[in-house]
């Protein structure tokens, strides 16, 4: 389990992240969402013991990120994928992975088997000695992900894992992340890809130099927006247009051709009453549907509010 309490990092007079608290339970995929410079990478680096917090604390399992003697153990438990793959471009894929396997203390045979399996899965085994500098961005990213996992870490920190991948490769990576979760790994992801976060993250935190909001992607939308219902009529009777604004159960009415877009507080209870009122007014209802807010809507609204 990862626990942060009041984690703060200042670079001189600049606040990268302030008073950041959260709990990431084991076996969970946790997404950090936020614009550039919001403090996501700084948070990930603090949790990886690469930089020290200015104040606050964080524990990974029972280890304290502030203690020098714990830092080495924490690093050994984490597999980090930074924003840029950072491979040794003149070396082959095998040597890149083998180097990190050795540094993480993976026994030789286990290392060799893991590398062979990984490179075979990536269809790179035959090209294992070619300098990785000649590989595509996506291929490098896959090797970098393999590098982060070479020592079978319990915690996996991924900074924009699918940023440079094509849709097919991104899907493979997403599926792999879900498989890691099923295996019991705890995964922390920094991402700008909101649909990706929505699909794979159990919990997301929107950050903008502080914690803006945390929760399940769907719960966040529900808590943030009133429910929007679109009612499509055969035609809109003039009486409806005149009186709907004063109808107590709806607000922010918009009329778009033969559609009424209304905001309601409690669709389950309010929708039947709205429908019967419309029918009383002589309206012929064709469709009624609730509009779902995407994580992107949630994100943009939260970031806008945080900016204000």
């Amino acid at each position, binding site marked *: 389990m990862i626990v942060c309490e009041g984690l703060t990092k200042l670079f001189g007079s600049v606040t990268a992240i302030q008073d950041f608290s959260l709990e990431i339970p084991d076996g969970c995929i946790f997404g950090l969402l936020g614009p550039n410079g919001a403090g996501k990478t700084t948070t990930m680096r603090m949790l990886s013991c*690469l930089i020290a917090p200015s104040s606050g604390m964080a524990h990974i399992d029972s280890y304290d990120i502030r203690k020098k003697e714990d830092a080495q153990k924490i690093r050994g438990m984490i597999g980090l994928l930074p924003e840029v793959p950072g491979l040794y471009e003149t070396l082959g894929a095998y040597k890149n992975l083998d180097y990190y396997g050795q*540094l993480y203390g993976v026994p030789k045979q286990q290392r060799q088997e893991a590398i062979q399996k990984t490179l075979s899965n990536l269809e790179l085994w035959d090209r294992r000695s070619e300098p990785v500098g000649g590989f595509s961005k996506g291929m490098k990213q896959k090797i970098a992900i393999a590098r982060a996992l070479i020592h079978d870490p319990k915690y996996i920190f991924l900074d924009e894992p699918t940023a440079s991948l094509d849709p097919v490769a991104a899907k493979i990576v997403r599926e792999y992340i879900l498989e890691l979760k099923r295996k019991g790994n705890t995964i922390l992801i920094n991402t700008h890809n909101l649909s990706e976060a929505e699909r794979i993250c159990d919990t997301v935190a929107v950050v903008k130099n502080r914690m803006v909001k945390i929760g399940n992607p769907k719960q966040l939308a529900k808590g943030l927006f009133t429910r929007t219902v679109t009612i499509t009529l055969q035609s809109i009777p003039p009486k409806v247009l005149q009186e709907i604004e004063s109808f107590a159960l709806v607000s922010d009415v918009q009329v778009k051709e033969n559609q009424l877009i209304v905001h309601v507080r409690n669709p389950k209870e309010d929708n039947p009453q709205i429908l019967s009122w419309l029918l009383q007014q002589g309206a012929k209802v064709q469709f009624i549907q609730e509009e779902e807010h995407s994580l992107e809507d949630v994100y943009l609204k939260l970031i806008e509010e945080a900016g204000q």
Partner: protein
Amino acid sequence: MRWRNAWIVMRKDLDEFKKQKFVIGSIIAMPILLGVVLPLATFVPLVTMAPLDQQWDIDGLLEIGSLPDDTAAPWTNQTRTDTSYEAMVFRHTFFKNASLTNCIIESCILENTTILDSTVQNSSLVDSVLLNVTVIRSEGTGLDGKFILAVSSDLAFTRTKPSEIDQVLPMMFNMILMIFIIIPATLPTIIATYSIVGEKNNRSLEPLLATPTTDGELLAGKIFSAFLPSMGATLLAFTLGVVLLDIVLIPKIGYPPLPNLTWILSMVLLAPTACLMSVLACVLVSSKVSDVRAAQQLGGFVVMPVVILMIGVLAGFIFLSPIMIFVFAGLYGGLDLGLFLFVKAIFNREAILTKWS
């Protein structure tokens, strides 16, 4: 400190180094030029053009030399002392404290006499100086044999004073030796300045720092990966230089002058400590700047302690004797230790990751 991790870092760096053909080329070319070509270019003209002491195989030359008519032992019927003679012919004369120039001397005894541009035949020489003298079928002891062309036997040359070459050689060897100290101090600027800042520019430093490797292990690996190629190239040039210089000098001075004790001690003690000092200073610079070019520019200053030594040698203030080698190696070794502790103390992962972007 887990040395295994330092070893892993070093091996990876050497693997990368092996792929850099131009870097390898410059690492080898510089020592060859300075340590082999330059000394040879200095010594070859010296030994081929300058008049040097020569001791010929006199027995071998007897066959081609003409044997004198009078082969009896020298005897004398007159004595000449404390006198100078020029362009004369002497027979059966005893010379003591004399000076003979352009003379033909047959069947004489010469003691403590200086003989210039002359021919000596069937004579006996004791404690004399012979310059450009052809000696035929004679005997002698205690001779200073500069410029002697001897066609004779039983001449025992005793150097009564150092010859010119004997006086010049140690000075020249000292200067050449300085090249072999400068080389290992200079080469790391090519490799070591890249060590940290290169990883940063390559964006490979963050995943590396995220491993359980400690600062000391990482730095030790980086230091050795710059030290080994630098010292390897230096030793290659040293071996080649010594062998070729011996080949050039043996025919002229009769023995292989190199490597002498000073040179061996220099290679074992002084060159490695100077190299290590340079590596450490370069790694220090590399961990503090954000650009490889800046690191290489600043790295140029790290040879200053060695340059100071070189100026001392060239100016004649310092003569690299074995004792001086121990003194400087101890000094450099102390500086190395201090520098390592300093580099380790100021190596700041956070600053490297966050202030270089």
